[in-house]
């Protein structure tokens, strides 16, 4: 009898495993984790933020079909799927953050503040308070992500409107400008007072510099420090084919994850990080030859990820639902590359970086994969073919995490149970 039950349960497992694997909204996850589609087709969802009661706000790249660029989602019947969805606002953008009873959202040049009532509904959708405005938007790398420290300061990335600070952007043979004038007003993280209205550059402070384009940033409340993930420069092979082959360009430079203290300089545009040499290398626009090492004044990355995968959000996990190893570690979403062409693209997953005593330790790993939706996880040649591209990350009140997609606008919910 016992044996029969064993056999039965093995047969049941063999039958149910592939079914379960197919479920999970198409994602591949570590054992014990499951995923489902919390929402879909809400419009290209960049960052997401969650209130204490579990209401999700998603900032859209552009207004969706209904003409809204901020969407509020609520799972009122608690079945893991949003059942109350509405929205407002006309401005595209990326950043969104919930702090107490305030909701902050960013356009590509400003940061606005809304007030939430006791049901986490926005009281003043049409009349937000302007916290910061006049931030540089020259299209390239214009999204303004935001996070807060444990006091009430906002940190916002202002991406460099350039690839490598050449005199003529992305023009073969054009030299790098010395010093790079872009760094005065972009290519770094700026700090503002979260409670003061109508601030602009002169009211803020450049907190960290030499960062080409940061989209993912988060405050590590455990070590009380800012962490940012940079998008490394493009096109080494197309500008310097005699220094970099297509295959080398596909691996150089690393996408870098930094712990940023006030005044830190990560070195863009003067250096880039070569993951195979484990070194900061002088950019060819500044006299580099693919080997010459850059100045040691520039920051070392905490983690170097494979090139061009485009880190979109950082989330330090403070929940209790996931196994202990995830506590205080960092999840990082990767949009998926385009600059590895003609080689196949990489990314389209959420990675995990373990932390101990406030420092990144050990090897990073792929946490959730399969967003691109290819058969059997096949490589993708062209990013426009990816079904979903991971972007925003947020942690729910029960310790589940949510991942947004900025193609059609899916939101995945990932949970763990023993």
């Amino acid at each position: 009898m016992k044996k029969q039950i064993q056999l039965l349960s093995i047969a049941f497992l063999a039958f149910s495993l592939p079914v379960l694997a197919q479920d999970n909204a198409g994602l591949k996850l570590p054992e014990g984790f499951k995923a489902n589609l919390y929402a879909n087709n809400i419009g290209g969802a960049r960052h997401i933020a969650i209130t204490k009661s579990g209401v999700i706000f998603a900032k859209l790249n552009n207004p969706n079909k209904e003409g809204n660029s901020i969407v509020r989602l609520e799972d009122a019947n608690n079945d893991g799927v949003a059942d109350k969805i509405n929205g407002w606002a006309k401005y595209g953008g990326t950043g969104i953050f919930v702090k107490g009873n305030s909701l902050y959202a960013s356009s590509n040049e400003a940061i606005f503040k809304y007030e939430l009532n006791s049901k986490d509904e926005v009281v003043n959708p049409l009349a937000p308070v302007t916290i910061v405005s006049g931030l540089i938007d020259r299209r390239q790398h214009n999204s303004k992500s935001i996070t807060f420290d444990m006091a009430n300061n906002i940190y916002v990335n202002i991406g460099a409107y350039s690839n490598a600070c050449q005199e003529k952007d992305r023009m073969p043979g054009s030299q790098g400008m010395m010093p790079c004038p872009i760094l005065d007003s972009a290519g770094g993280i700026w700090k503002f007072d979260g409670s003061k209205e109508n601030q602009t550059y002169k009211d803020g402070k450049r907190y960290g510099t030499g960062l080409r384009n940061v989209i993912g940033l988060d405050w590590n409340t455990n070590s009380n420090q800012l962490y940012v993930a940079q998008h490394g420069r493009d096109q080494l092979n197309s500008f310097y084919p005699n220094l970099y082959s297509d295959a080398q360009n596909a691996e150089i430079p690393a996408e870098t994850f930094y712990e940023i203290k006030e005044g830190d300089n990560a070195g863009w545009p003067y250096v880039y990080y070569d993951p195979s040499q484990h070194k900061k290398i002088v950019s060819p626009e500044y006299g580099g030859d693919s080997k010459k090492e850059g100045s040691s004044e520039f920051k070392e990355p905490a983690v170097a990820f494979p090139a061009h995968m485009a880190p979109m959000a950082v989330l330090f996990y403070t929940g209790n639902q996931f196994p202990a190893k995830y506590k205080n570690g960092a999840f990082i979403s990767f949009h998926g590359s385009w600059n590895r062409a003609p080689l196949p693209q990489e990314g389209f997953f959420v990675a995990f970086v373990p932390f101990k005593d406030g420092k990144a330790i050990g090897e990073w790993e792929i946490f959730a994969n399969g967003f691109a939706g290819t058969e059997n996880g096949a490589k993708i040649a062209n990013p426009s073919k990816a079904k979903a591209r991971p972007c925003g990350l947020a942690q729910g009140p029960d310790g589940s995490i949510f991942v947004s997609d900025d193609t059609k606008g899916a939101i995945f919910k990932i949970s763990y149970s023993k």
Partner: protein
Amino acid sequence: MVNLLMNRAIKIILLSCFLVIAQYSNAQNKINGKKIYETRCLVCHQSDGGGVPNMNPPLDGATNVNGKDIARLVKIIRNGYDERIALDGMYYNNAMAANPDLKEDAIADVLTYIRTSWSNKAGVVTTSQVKAALLKNKAAKK
């Protein structure tokens, strides 16, 4: 009578020679255009011409690429493009660099390639069309 037949035969032979040569040079154009595309354009517009969502526009199926305004296409290739206008209803964030060193025949070849590849079935672009477009663009600048 014999003469007349001869005459016709010669005409037919000449015509077919011409057609074969024309076909051959179109194919040559496209091969050269593909080479230029792979070294200068593929990184942004991708091997399938599908572009990169929100960053670089698709060329496959794009209205302008398949359209009649050759002068505009020539100008984009020569001078680069950063206009912040909607292309088939979408906006793109990257900036396209100029190609000042691409000669007239090379511009014709790469335009021929993008207009006749993937699902695109617009016509070839000739060197003389490119020359005319450059003159027109120059006149418009003055």
